[in-house]
């Protein structure tokens, strides 16, 4: 039932994570695995593309909180793109826009990394 899929792509020096379906306490470990793999591979520049994400609970939000500082300490970041309004509203309710950058399109998020070199 709890359909969730996560896919990892490389776009230049940036890692793009596509998340799809329902991200809850049951499925969040799958996303954690991907972040652990990125740390193993010393990949710190991450864009998460939310285009096909239908639902997120705090268990999903917690994954980003757990990894973002390590990314930043290594000159990287986690940036968000293509978020549906109902999903954005949850991030917003918790004050995430103070701490994270949100972009309408994946391209813009990628460019932001590029422009910083």
């Amino acid at each position, binding site marked *: 039932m709890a359909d969730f899929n996560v896919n990892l792509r490389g776009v230049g020096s940036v890692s793009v994570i596509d998340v799809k379906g329902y991200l809850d*306490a049951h499925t969040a470990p799958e996303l954690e695995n991907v972040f652990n793999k990125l740390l193993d591979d010393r990949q710190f520049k991450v864009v998460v593309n939310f285009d096909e994400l239908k639902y997120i*609970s*705090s268990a999903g939000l*917690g994954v980003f909180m*757990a990894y973002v500082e390590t990314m930043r300490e290594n000159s990287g970041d986690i940036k968000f793109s293509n978020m549906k309004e109902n999903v954005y509203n949850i991030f917003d309710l*918790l004050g995430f826009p103070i701490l994270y950058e949100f972009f309408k399109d994946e391209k813009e998020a990628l460019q932001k990394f590029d422009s910083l070199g």
Partner: protein
Amino acid sequence: MNSSKNIYEKELLVKSTTDNLALIREFTRNSAADCGFSDETIGKIILAVDEACTNIIKHAYKYSPEGNIFLAVKFEERKFFISITDEGKHFDPANVPEPDLVQYYKQKRAGGLGMFLIKKLMDEVNYSTLSGNKNQVVLVKYLS
């Protein structure tokens, strides 16, 4: 609402495993939709119930899959009540501080957001202890 008495009742009993969260959300969606809430409000109720059940699985039962989670829904005087009962560890919600996202960020903490969300999303949240070592939280949403 199908009931002429205008009292709506539904119950779900599941074990304390995260793979039941999807069913719990469907149960909640179906119940709230029957009471006439908008999709946006249904989404809020679903998330609050998910967070409350996730907390029970994580904290009250510490991921033991043997525990029971019992949900019961009623709709009375334009108020939607969903009670969630467990037989796990007691806790005092008054001792849980409000989360501070910036602090959390600095401490690399990932949790502490669930209870904050529940309170933000619902109109009333009431924790209580029942006889037989049961804990109950009742979440209430008003139909405006």
